[in-house]
């Protein structure tokens, strides 16, 4: 087997895309043709393939995080437009005014809880990608963490857009046709953006990195949380974050609805949801080990 064949096999084994493999083969083939017999000086084909794969996997993870964040930004605009336009209606529909509560409750969960998960996971993914943008080759486990954050964010983004579509269907007999068409259409477009970001991530995840090293966690991303007493007690971080989310959104609801009772209800709901989110997804986003 020739040096070039061995390199191609090693690149293929590491999931380097076909187009990239073809380019590398042409460039290295030209190099060998310029000076026949120079293969020994080119180095070990396995080490060279590893170097290509590690760097491509790193660049892919960063691109995936950026694509995810961009797609989520579009989804966020759709959600905000839907809420602002809804607030303008005099007859704001309640849960009993729709077709079915089977549609209403998943819709509300999708529109209230999922965006918060998407915001946290998506921001952490893009922040890590930005923070480590000058590193040519990240440890494989760190690349895995960026992908994991982006995956959670994309899943929550999809859940949000599905929630919006369910809301549109649930109130299709109560809300004006222009609103249903506008928001239903915008949510579908945002969904397509999320699909495109998912494809970017799938392609990036196919490249296998071998680089050694630790993935780091949320305390590396946000040094402000780096107190020893907090770092050694991740459950305390989860509890504090849940209380903060509950208090902030409870206060917001109480102010918006002019009702302390509704504020307490919303605050409890959001606090419990944040705690559950931390338990279920904390490891995936690097908030706990």
């Amino acid at each position, binding site marked *: 087997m020739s040096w070039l064949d061995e390199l191609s096999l090693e690149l293929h084994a590491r999931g380097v895309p076909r187009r990239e493999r073809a380019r590398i083969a042409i460039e290295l083939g030209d*190099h060998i*043709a310029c000076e026949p017999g120079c293969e020994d000086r*080119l180095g070990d084909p396995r080490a060279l393939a590893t170097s290509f794969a590690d*760097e491509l996997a790193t660049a892919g993870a960063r691109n995936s995080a950026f694509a995810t964040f961009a797609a989520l930004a579009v989804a966020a605009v759709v959600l905000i437009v839907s809420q602002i336009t809804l607030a303008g209606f005099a007859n704001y529909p309640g849960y009993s005014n729709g077709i079915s509560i089977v549609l209403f409750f998943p819709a509300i969960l999708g529109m209230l809880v999922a965006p918060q998960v998407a915001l946290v996971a998506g921001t952490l993914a893009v922040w890590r990608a930005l923070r480590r943008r000058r590193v040519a080759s990240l440890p494989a486990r760190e690349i895995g963490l960026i992908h994991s954050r982006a995956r959670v964010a994309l899943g929550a983004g999809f859940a949000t857009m599905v929630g919006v579509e369910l809301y549109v269907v649930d109130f299709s007999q109560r809300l004006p046709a222009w609103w249903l068409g506008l928001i239903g259409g915008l949510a579908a477009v945002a969904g397509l953006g999320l699909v495109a970001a998912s494809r970017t991530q799938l392609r990036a995840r196919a490249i296998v990195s071998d680089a050694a090293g630790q993935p780091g966690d949320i305390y590396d991303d946000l040094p402000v949380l780096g107190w020893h007493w907090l770092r050694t007690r991740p459950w305390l971080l989860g509890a504090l974050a849940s209380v903060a989310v509950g208090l902030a959104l409870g206060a917001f609801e109480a102010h918006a609805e002019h009702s302390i009772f509704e504020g307490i209800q919303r605050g409890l709901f959001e606090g419990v949801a944040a705690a559950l989110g931390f338990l279920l997804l904390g490891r995936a986003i690097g908030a706990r080990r």
Partner: protein
Amino acid sequence: MKSDTLNGQLDPLILATVAEESAHGYAILQRLKERSSGAFDLAEGTIYPALHRLERDGLLTSKWSTGSGRRRRVYSLTRAGTSALEVRRQEWKHFAHAVEAVMG
């Protein structure tokens, strides 16, 4: 000079080499060898991941051309690459000056 010593310096060396004239991988390596009088003992293949990385970072651009009857990828410096090279030159001058002052 072993490749370990070159750690972190290969990128600006490639940029400086391409700044003279657009070139393909083998020609860039030959220029590096000539200008350093063969001082750099690096696995020659290592310049290719570096070239691809510099292109991804927007410091180099490349296009296909045909030379000696073969397709080859020819690299050129971008405007961002020119700026980055100037920054790295200044950093290196300061570093070399400081090391010389200490080492004598």
